[in-house]
């Protein structure tokens, strides 16, 4: 049933004013798109590795660790590098001695524990996606334990510390990336 004189309403509607948004809206949209882009890039970096590539990297790290241990246990200690690496070459942002590892690990371990809780809450499909990265983190942790054992035996050897620092750096990055992916959609109890 058509209203009486509906054309009057239609004519007035045609003349309704057009409003313009404030100029800052586009800037906010652009910023949000930038932030979303960065997140996607970080995520796609990890996913750009195939399972095979990740498995190869993990195997190489494990072999390196086994080799180091074998050389140490057969009495050769850390090969060559101790003489060439000085303490000043170590990254001051990371633990510089075995004593500092404990405090550093205290912070990172809490982060890692939260990450593992998030992973436990993830749906199976999501959990499968991050499994390669999780395997890599496990491998790095194993290597790290081996290096700490080596330092226990040898004292603060700069070459060993440099290797440990490099492992800590990779571990910290990996935990950060995994946290972004796993904890974003999870509400911990």
């Amino acid at each position, binding site marked *: 049933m058509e*209203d*009486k004189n509906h054309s009057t309403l239609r004519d007035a509607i045609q003349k309704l004013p057009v*409003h313009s948004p404030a100029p800052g809206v*586009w800037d906010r949209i652009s910023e*949000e798109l930038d932030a*979303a882009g960065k997140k996607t890039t970080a995520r796609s970096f990890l996913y750009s590795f195939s399972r095979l590539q990740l498995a190869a990297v993990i195997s190489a790290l494990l072999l390196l660790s086994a080799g180091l241990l074998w050389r140490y246990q057969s009495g050769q200690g850390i090969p060559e590098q101790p003489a060439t690496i000085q303490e000043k070459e170590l990254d001051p942002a990371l633990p510089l001695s075995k004593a500092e590892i404990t405090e550093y690990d205290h912070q990172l371990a809490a982060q890692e524990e939260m990450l593992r809780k998030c992973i436990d809450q993830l749906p199976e499909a999501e959990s499968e996606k991050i499994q390669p990265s999780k395997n890599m983190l496990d491998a790095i942790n194993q290597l790290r334990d081996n290096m700490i054992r080596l330092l226990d035996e040898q004292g603060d050897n700069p070459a060993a510390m440099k290797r440990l620092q490099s492992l800590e750096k990779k571990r910290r990055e990996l935990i950060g990336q995994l946290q972004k992916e796993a904890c974003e959609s999870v509400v911990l109890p």
Partner: protein
Amino acid sequence: MNREGYRISETEQQLVTGCRAGNRLAQKALYDRYKDAMYTLCYRITSDADLAHDVLQEAFIGVFKGIDGFRQASTLGAWIKTIVVRTAYRRIKKETDYVALEDITHAETPDWGSEIDAGYLEQAIQELPPGYRSVFVLIEVEGYSHKEVADMMGISVGTSKSQLFYAKKQLQKKLKALGVR
């Protein structure tokens, strides 16, 4: 219409392609093309300038993130408008009360007289309760059907019709109070 759906202009096709590639200039151009129409719609539905800005922002983020899903089943403007309406409606949903459907079949039909001032009409629309306002804006101003509004808002066609009827009744009262008619 082509096999995929609506044919869009070459310029819009280029903008869509650019937006799909994440090109910021193309995104800005698309935003500039539709910002006024979409903001006006946001403002009419929400009746709050700050909220309308938030809705516009959220809706365009949704447009850029979801542009891969634009399959030309409608025009580009209509597709964007649907996202804007859904976003706006989600934001006002909490404060929207729908009156129970009453038998309006035999109700008196509204009479709009010979002239309505557009400025006063705008003011009267803004003063409507959210449920009336959104249905009136979508059907009378934006040209959606009751079925489309019902689908978008998750209400029945009957509720949409009753909302529109009561919206018009209130509008007429308000316009009379403003001394327009």
